[in-house]
Every structure is written in structure tokens, then in C-alpha cells.
């Protein structure tokens, strides 16, 4: 049967068009009950003995997903109208519901009521879409009731009073969530029920003790139509809101329409917008624009704590143009150049999970436990969980479907693997790996062999993950969702299940493993003569740590073959590095710290800067070379669908803060190209040993992050990697912990003709969405690692007030920002007690401001005096 759906739609250009679509109604949609005699039962999912079948309403799914996820609730029919409504309202809940419906252990059945000839309902005149959907649910429930007969009870679960009343009128048994769960007689389930405001005691009945509840705090957001016309008439300005890292009540909106950043002060001006939202901003009258100085006489809310932070590592999360306006010397500038504004509407929310804390009310009316654990602020486990949730990191254990994809354990190299004509047997080679101490997921190993003609054969062997992770399997899906492993200070969240990560794929010493190898012939001057790619079988002879490898190279008494290999590699790497730097690769610095963790309590015992040795640089050099070689190979074979990594050149504006700071110290940086910048960074040496490093950190902060992309989406001129000064770059060397590398492995295998290219690569939009997801996950993983380091730093200093040296990197009107190189942390130090804001302590001289700041040494006394940083 055919139904025509017709509706009116507004196009992106603002025109109104009528859309007519076909909507087929069918008679071959089955009910999903195995006991049914009329339907095809091959795809049935409900249990055979089900006496009650539940049909859930949309609001129940949206509010009670935790309850539905409990295995006690089963035999549920999910109607497609409900699925659609849930998808439109909350994507996260939709995904959880979808997981439930696909889980073979749960008895959730999806019934396409919208395409069934008996359950499709047409919208009646004057009926709202919501009412129509409710009616569709009731019609479907009624159909089920007559279809399954008297032996099975159909129960419509809804918390909507009106829907329930009508259902009962029409002869469908219907219950609210609470009454249904109560009837099950399982008190622990009752804890999972989220009390809804429309059922039971409504919130209005309880008198609210908080006076603020009655008052209008924020002005209402403008409707979208008004915002669009306002943007059109240039009354409003659109941009992405970025909150100041040090002050949650100050934000910036970069606006193209006025070509400057609009500053937004205070909570009410920010009007419920969060960091990352796309907002519409209205400019305040010019007399309300404040200069940098009056920032301190801010709203009452401004007295919140400013926290100590790790240094932001790239421009993406550091506010830009911070130093743009410098008040004129000594005077209180009457009009500043920075426009101020207030948010009038949010165009696009940056949806994302946030964590907050509850403060008990003075008179707790009814304090209900939600059946979850109690969490306390400052508790390490709590804070850890918070940072995982806020960065949207999936820590759930791998599902049974995923684990089913693993090869049987214990795994060992089989004769079939060796018999494979595409796999070369390289077990006779002296292969070894160098990694950080305690590394269990070893995904790269090297070998170096002098050839008779004086050249070297150098091989990089990467764990052959794609041999185990086949495209399209649940394991592959899961890995592509997770995107990357996440490294926290005391914990690692794997992308692949543990047996793969730590055993089957890990290139440990003295075991035979499968690898994907890139083998070069190099001259002693590190010129690559030929490159060969092959799948291989290797046997690593040693898994060294960086320290061990360094010690072997430095110890002149050691002359064993392994050490010789190391020295050869090192000398090759040095030349390669030099050449790379000559091409203009930047050596950027980011302060990395390292913790020693107490094995029992997991509290940090010691903290220090991560030391970079020659051995680290040696490994890095060969990994870079392998990545570049692979990038060239896959791009040559698949010019339209290769996954590459690019680092866009920073624009002039982005480098502005660096240039200003440098100019303040009397340093002239040339930023015309990466080479020029690299050279001038090399020349920037002050009396202070940390000076160069600081400048490099500042430079790093001006750059955006490198991103993955599909080569079909951009023109070849945009492929280049600025930071590495490489024309092409990709990620090939860590497939155990990055999904991008898995994709690249598949591309390379297809390029060599070993495997077929999975069809997903031909689907441009999907490839792009994978690249986007990888970028997003990569970034979140970095943020989480940083937050974890930050957390442990705080825990460490909580017990140990420390005196140490710091460097001032920035001077603000009432505070300055201090960087402590030893621990890699940065934080503000207030010079004025916080209550006494008006005090005018600075007679500052803008040009002098940072010249003193970068070179002067401040001793921690100041910190102690102000309590700013003694965490």
C-alpha cells in the first residue's frame, strides 16, 4: 500500500518548498514474538514465555534509560516512532537504546509501526505532531493486543497522564513507570527510577527555600528568527565563545563581522552559554567597554578561585589575542579598544557532558539516593571519573561480541601465517624495540644491518594489528569508536582489548610476532636509496627502555652486535634530524612531566620534567621517516581516499601573541616560514637557561593542532605538515593505540595488493566522518591525559608545600601568570588580596611589562605570600 507524505520545508537559502515523499506501508512486518503463529518468527527477539510485553513511550525512554538498561526489564517492544522521537531529542540516549536493541542478550524488539499497514496513522487536522505520535503508540499497542491474543498482556508504559488516560479509555492496559516497577516487587529497581515531575509529587508542591529561584537571573535568549535577522542587519555578531582559562566569567567571541574579539564579562552577560558554543552577541554601548584595568572591578561573581593549570599546549585552547590591548602608560585608559558584548542567543550548543557538584540544601526536604555511589569533591577516584566523563571517554569493558572477535589464547605464530606468500619471514633479523619503561603495548621495533656495499638496511616493524582486527567486525567498530587509547597518569584505557594490546600484537622480546615492515636501504649519510613494504614475521631479541638503550650507546666498553646496531641507528638518526631541521621542522616544546606513583595508594610520590634522551629522538626519527614513506606510498595508490595528517600553517593573527611577547623582550622573530621561525627560535637565547624553552612553549601555543583528513577532501597544497616541515605525513606506527594507524595499515596492504580495500574507503562522507571522529577522540584523549596530570600535580602539592623557582610569563592588571618549569604548571599569582580589588598596584609600563617578566626570576616566597599557587 502506498501513502504519500507531503510536507513543507524551508531550504537553506530560505526558500519554502513542498516536499512529497513516498511512504510504503507493508504487511510483512512481524511482531517479534516467537510464539506467534501468523508471523515469521525467524527474527523474533522476545522471549517465548513472555506473559507481559512492554511498550514504552518516548518520555519513558528519555528519562528512564538507566532503568531500561537493567537486565530485570525485558520483553520490550520499541516502536520506530519512539526511536525517531528519541533520536531527535537526545542522541546519547538514542545510542544507548540502539545498543540495547542490538544486544543479543536483551529482549528488545524494534517494531516498525510507521511502515505497518495496520499501525500507520495519518495526522489529523489540528493534531500536533506530539499527539499524533502518542496516538501512533496507542494504535500499535492496540494492534499488539489483538495480534498476540489473550495469553499475552500488553502493557503500555507511559508517564504522560493524558496518554495513559486515553490508552485506558481505548482498552489498553497502561501503567506509569513507578507503578510498574513497584508491581515487580524489586526494591532495588525502584532506586533506578528517575522521579519525574509530572508523576507523583510535583515539584511545585514543595516550597522552595531558595529565594533565587523566584528571580529572573538571565534574560531570555532571542528566538532564532530574530537572531538571523539581527545577524543580517549586523546588529548581532556570530562567533564561537571561548572562556578564559583563568577566569570562568570572562569569555571571548571571535567575530568576523567586526574583525576583532568581543569580550564578554560576567555570568549574566554570558547568559548560559558554555565554552565552544556558537553564539550571537550584541555589542554593549561603548561607555561600558572596559579596559584591561577595570577588569578587576568586576561583578560580584568575579571573586571565584582561579586555578593552577597545566600549560595549554596549543592555540586551540588558549585564548587568543590576550595581549592585544595594552593600556597606555601609567594612565587609566578611558576607552579601551576592546569591544564588550553580551550573549543574546545560542546558535549552536557545544553539547558535551559536564560534571557538577551538589551542595546539600539547608533543609533537605527529601534526600533521595539514586542508587549510585556517593562521590566527594577532591577524592581522587571521583575526580578521575569526572575527567573521563567530561572528555567523553568510553571506559566500559569490551562487550562479549567484541571479545568474541579475538583469536583463541594463547596465540602463537602458526605455520599458515608463515606459508602465506605475502608474509616474509624476518625472524632471523636482529630486531629490537625501545620504549618507555614499563611499556606493555609495544607497537614498534627496529633493525639495522650493515650491507656489503657500505650501506645500511634499516627496518621499522610495526605490530600487524589489522591481521587480527578485520574490517566490519564488532571489534573494528568498537576500536573506530574509541579512536585511541587514553593514557592517564595511573591508568591506561585501551582502544583494543587487553589480550591484543598486551600480548598478541605487542612486539615483546623473544616471542614470534606478526609485523608490517618498512625496510629502507640507506647510505651512511641517511639518504634513502630504496623503500620496501611487506608484511612479516619477526622475533624481537630485546625490549629495551630508553634509559637502557641510552646507557648501552654511552658505555664505550659494550661492543656487542645489538649495541653496534643502536649506535649505527643513532648516527643515521642524527643526520636525518639535522636534515629535517634544515628543512624547517620546528622543535616545539611542551612541558611534559612524569610522576612516580605509589603502587599501593596510587598517590604521586615524585614529580619531575620528562627527560628527553638521544634514544628517544632516535626512535622518533625513524618513526617519522616510516610515516612519511607510508604516506607517499598510499597517496600514490589512492589519491582520493588516503587518510593523512596535516598541520596547517599558522596565520599571522595566530602568531600575534608570540610576536608581541617576543618584541617586549626585545626579540625579533621571523615568522615568514617554518624555517625562518625555527631559525629565529634557535637564536632566541637569553641569560636564563629556561628562556628558550619558554619562547618555544609560547610558540607551540600559537599553533593549531595537527588533524587527520581524507586526501580526497582537500587539494594537495593543503596536505603539508607545518611542524614537521613534511610535504606528506600520516600515522602508521602505533596501530595498537590509534585507530588512524589501523586505517593506514589497511590502505598500505591494499596498495601492496595483499588485501582488498574495504568498501568504506570509497564512501567519501563516511571516511570524512571517521577522520572527524578520530580528531575529536584524539583531542579528548589529550585533554584527559592533561587533566589527569593536573589532578596528580594537585594531589602531590596538597601534602607538600614547596618552594621553587618560577618564571613570569604575563602580567595582568591584578595578577601575573607564573610558569614553574620544573613541574610544568602555570597559574596566576594575585598581588592584591582578593577582597581589596580596587587597589591600583601597578604603575606599569606596557613595553617594560614583559621584558621584566620573561627574564626576571621570582622566588616562590611570593607564591607563599599570596597563597596563589601553594595548591
Amino acid at each position, binding site marked *: 500500500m502506498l501513502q*504519500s507524505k507531503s510536507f513543507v520545508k524551508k531550504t537553506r537559502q530560505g526558500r519554502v518548498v513542498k516536499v512529497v*515523499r513516498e511512504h510504503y506501508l507493508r504487511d510483512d512486518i512481524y511482531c517479534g514474538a516467537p510464539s506467534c503463529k501468523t508471523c515469521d518468527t525467524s527474527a523474533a527477539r522476545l522471549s517465548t514465555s513472555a506473559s507481559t510485553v512492554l511498550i514504552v513511550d518516548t518520555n519513558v525512554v528519555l528519562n528512564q534509560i538507566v532503568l531500561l538498561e537493567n537486565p530485570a526489564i525485558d520483553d520490550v517492544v520499541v516502536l520506530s516512532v519512539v526511536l525517531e522521537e528519541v533520536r531527535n531529542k537526545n542522541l546519547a540516549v538514542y545510542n544507548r537504546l540502539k545498543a540495547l536493541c542490538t544486544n543479543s542478550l536483551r529482549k528488545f524488539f524494534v517494531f516498525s509501526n510507521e511502515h505497518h499497514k495496520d499501525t500507520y496513522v495519518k495526522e489529523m487536522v489540528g493534531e500536533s505532531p506530539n499527539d499524533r505520535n502518542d496516538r501512533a503508540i496507542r494504535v500499535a499497542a492496540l494492534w499488539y493486543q489483538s495480534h498476540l491474543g489473550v495469553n499475552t498482556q500488553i502493557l503500555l508504559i507511559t508517564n504522560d497522564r493524558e496518554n495513559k488516560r486515553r490508552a485506558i479509555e481505548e482498552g489498553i492496559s497502561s501503567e506509569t513507570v513507578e507503578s510498574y516497577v513497584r508491581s515487580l516487587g524489586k526494591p532495588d529497581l525502584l532506586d533506578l527510577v528517575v522521579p519525574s515531575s509530572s508523576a507523583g509529587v510535583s515539584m511545585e508542591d514543595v516550597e522552595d527555600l531558595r529565594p533565587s529561584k523566584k528571580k529572573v537571573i538571565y534574560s531570555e535568549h532571542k528566538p532564532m528568527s530574530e537572531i538571523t535577522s539581527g545577524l543580517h542587519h549586523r546588529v548581532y555578531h556570530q562567533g564561537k565563545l571561548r572562556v578564559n582559562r583563568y577566569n570562568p566569567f570572562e569569555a571571548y567571541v571571535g567575530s568576523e563581522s567586526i574583525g576583532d574579539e568581543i569580550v564578554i564579562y560576567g555570568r549574566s552577560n554570558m547568559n548560559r552559554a558554555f565554552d565552544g558554543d556558537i553564539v550571537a552577541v550584541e555589542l554593549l554601548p561603548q561607555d561600558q567597554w572596559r579596559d584591561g584595568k577595570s577588569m578587576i572591578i568586576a561583578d560580584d561573581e568575579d571573586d571565584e578561585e582561579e586555578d593552577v593549570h597545566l600549560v595549554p599546549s596549543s592555540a586551540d585552547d588558549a585564548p587568543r589575542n590576550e595581549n592585544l590591548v595594552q593600556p597606555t602608560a601609567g594612565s587609566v585608559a578611558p576607552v579601551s579598544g576592546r569591544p564588550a558584548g553580551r550573549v543574546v542567543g545560542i546558535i549552536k550548543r557545544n553539547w558535551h557532558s559536564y560534571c557538577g557538584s551538589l551542595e546539600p540544601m539547608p533543609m533537605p526536604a527529601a534526600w533521595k539516593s539514586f542508587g549510585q555511589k556517593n562521590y566527594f569533591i577532591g577524592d581522587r577516584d571521583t575526580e578521575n571519573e569526572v575527567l573521563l566523563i567530561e572528555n567523553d571517554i568510553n571506559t566500559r569493558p569490551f562487550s562479549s561480541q567484541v571479545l568474541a572477535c579475538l583469536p583463541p589464547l594463547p596465540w602463537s605464530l602458526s605455520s599458515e601465517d608463515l606459508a602465506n606468500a605475502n608474509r616474509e619471514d624476518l625472524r632471523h633479523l636482529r630486531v629490537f624495540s625501545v620504549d618507555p619503561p614499563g611499556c606493555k603495548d609495544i607497537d614498534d621495533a627496529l633493525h639495522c644491518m650493515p650491507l656489503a656495499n657500505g650501506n645500511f638496511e634499516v627496518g621499522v616493524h610495526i605490530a600487524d594489528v589489522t591481521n587480527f582486527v578485520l574490517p566490519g567486525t564488532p571489534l573494528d567498530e568498537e576500536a573506530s569508536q574509541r579512536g585511541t587509547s587514553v593514557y592517564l597518569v595511573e591508568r591506561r584505557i585501551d582502544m583494543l582489548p587487553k589480550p591484543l594490546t598486551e600480548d598478541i600484537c605487542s612486539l615483546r622480546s623473544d616471542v614470534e610476532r606478526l609485523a608490517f615492515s618498512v625496510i629502507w636501504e640507506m647510505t651512511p649519510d641517511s639518504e634513502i636509496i630504496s623503500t620496501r613494504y611487506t608484511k612479516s614475521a619477526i622475533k624481537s631479541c630485546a625490549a629495551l627502555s630508553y634509559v637502557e638503550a641510552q646507557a648501552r650507546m654511552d658505555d664505550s666498553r659494550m661492543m656487542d652486535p645489538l649495541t653496534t646496531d643502536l649506535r649505527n641507528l643513532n648516527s643515521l638518526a642524527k643526520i636525518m634530524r639535522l636534515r629535517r631541521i634544515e628543512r624547517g621542522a620546528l622543535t616545539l616544546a611542551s612541558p611534559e612531566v612524569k610522576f612516580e606513583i605509589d603502587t599501593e595508594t596510587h598517590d604521586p610520590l615524585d614529580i619531575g620534567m620528562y627527560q628527553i634522551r638521544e634514544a628517544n629522538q632516535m626512535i622518533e626519527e625513524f618513526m617519522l621517516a616510516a610515516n612519511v614513506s607510508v604516506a607517499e606510498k598510499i597517496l600514490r595508490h589512492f589519491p582520493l581516499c588516503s587518510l593523512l595528517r596535516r598541520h596547517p600553517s599558522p596565520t599571522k593573527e595566530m602568531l600575534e601573541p608570540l610576536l608581541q611577547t617576543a618584541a617586549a623582550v626585545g626579540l625579533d622573530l621571523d615568522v615568514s616560514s617554518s624555517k625562518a621561525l625555527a631559525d629565529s627560535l634557535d637564536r632566541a637565547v637569553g641569560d636564563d637557561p629556561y628562556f628558550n624553552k619558554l619562547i618555544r612553549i609560547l610558540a607551540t601555543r600559537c599553533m593549531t593542532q595537527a588533524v587527520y583528513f581524507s586526501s580526497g577532501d582537500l587539494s594537495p597544497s593543503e596536505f603539508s605538515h607545518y611542524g614537521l616541515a613534511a610535504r606528506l605525513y600520516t600515522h602508521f606506527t602505533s596501530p595498537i593505540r590509534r585507530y588512524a594507524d589501523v586505517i593506514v595499515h589497511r590502505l598500505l596492504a591494499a596498495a601492496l595488493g595483499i588485501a582488498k*580495500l574495504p568498501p568504506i574507503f570509497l564512501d567519501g562522507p563516511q571516511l570524512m566522518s571517521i577522520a572527524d571522529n578520530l580528531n575529536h577522540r584524539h583531542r579528548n584523549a589529550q585533554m584527559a591525559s592533561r587533566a589527569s596530570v593536573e589532578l596528580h600535580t594537585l594531589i602531590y602539592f596538597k601534602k607538600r608545600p614547596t618552594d621553587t623557582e618560577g618564571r613570569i610569563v604575563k602580567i595582568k592588571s591584578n595578577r601575573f601568570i607564573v610558569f614553574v618549569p620544573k613541574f610544568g604548571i602555570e597559574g596566576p599569582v594575585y598581588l592584591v588580596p582578593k577582597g581589596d580589588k580596587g587597589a591600583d598596584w601597578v604603575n606599569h609600563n606596557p613595553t617594560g611589562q614583559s621584558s621584566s617578566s620573561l627574564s626576571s626570576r621570582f622566588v616562590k616566597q611570593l607564591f607563599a605570600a599570596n597563597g596563589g599557587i601553594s595548591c
Partner: protein
Amino acid sequence: MEYVDSLTGFRLDGRRPTDMRQIRGEIGVVPKADGSALFEMGNTKVIAAIYGPREVQNKSQQVNNQALVRCEYSMANFSTGDRARRPKGDRRSTEISLVIRQTMEACILTHLMPRSQIDIFVQVLQADGGTRSACINAATLALADAGIPMCDIVTSCSAGYLSSTPLLDLNYIEDSAGGPDVTVGILAKMDKVTLLQMDAKLPLDIFENVMQLAIEGCKAIAQYIRGVLLENTKQLEYRKGV
């Protein structure tokens, strides 16, 4: 966007991946023409009119040993949601005209009608994906109506590959998803392919599946068209009082 629902396996309009849209054919809709037909595939609706075989209008084009087949494809201004002026002879319609002409030429026994001309006019009344196929099907019906000798009936159907599933008979939304779209035309009884078009890349094994699906679609259409023709002949018989 999900073109095939992963939970229910239905496409956006409620079809399964291997379902065709509803088809309908009608003969004799333009009485003035020598042969005419209307063909619908879901919301795609096309009309075809045949003039000929008749004297060649432009003598210079005359072929002495076979008939000259000409084809003109056009889209009505009202055929899509927004009423747009369509210039005659733009790239797209020229290309489709050519495709239809070549496909029809392959089945018309042109050598039986030397020094004559056959005009095929097809116009899209409503477009919702698959116009090319619908036009070929309509032209087949109209040619049969005009009594032009053909070696077999040509039918056409498209198939695509979206959400990693081969889909039969794409509608406009699926067509504009940007995935591969394979249009196949076959000589139904002789089981020969006369038209195969695809302007995207597909791995060979997947391509074969998609093409096979399109061929199945063509065969189903051929069966339907045969039914329509049979019905039409019966009507004619009845009217003649045989």
C-alpha cells in the same frame, strides 16, 4: 545519514533494500502521436510519444539502408519542487537523449525501414530519481504501441550502493546521497545488456552484486511491461471484434 535503518533494515520510505517502487504503465496517452505511453516508478512520472516511421525531415541526415532514430529528452518546468526554467539542450538532457537513443536503437529493427525517421520524445512530468530508467521503459512501451518492429523489449532499472548495502531503484533522496548509481538496460528475453552506466567507483565484487540486483529489477519491469502490452493487445482484439 542512515539510508538503511540498522535496526529494522528498512529504507527511508519503508522499502527493503531489494524492493522496487510501485510501477505503473499506460499505453495511448497522446492520441495524436503514432504511439505513446506513460510510465511511473513511484513518484517519477514520464511520458513518451513516438512519431514515425515517417519521411526524413532533413534529407542530409537520411540513411539509405536503415531508419534514422532521433530522441529528445526534456524535463517539464514543474517536474521538480521548485519551478525552474530549464534551457533546452543543456548538457544533462543532451546526454540522456543520447543514452536513450542508443539504447532504443539497439532493439529497433532499423534495417526494415530504410530512408525513414523515428522520433522519440520523452518528457519527465515529475522527477524523483531514476528518470533515465523510467524514460527508457516508457519509450519501450510507446514504441510497441506505435507498432515499430523490435527484436525484444528493452527495460531499464537503477541500483545503488549506500550504507554498505546494494539498493534497488534509488529515489531522489538516495540518488542525491552521492553514492554510486548503476543504471542498467537489458534486452529482457535475449538476456543482453544494452546500457550500463555508472559514474563512481566501486570494488569489482560489490559492483557485480549491484549490477545483478539492477538486472533483477529490469527483469521484473520487463515482466510487468509484457503484461501491459498483452492487456493492450487484448483490448485491441476486442475492439476489432476478432
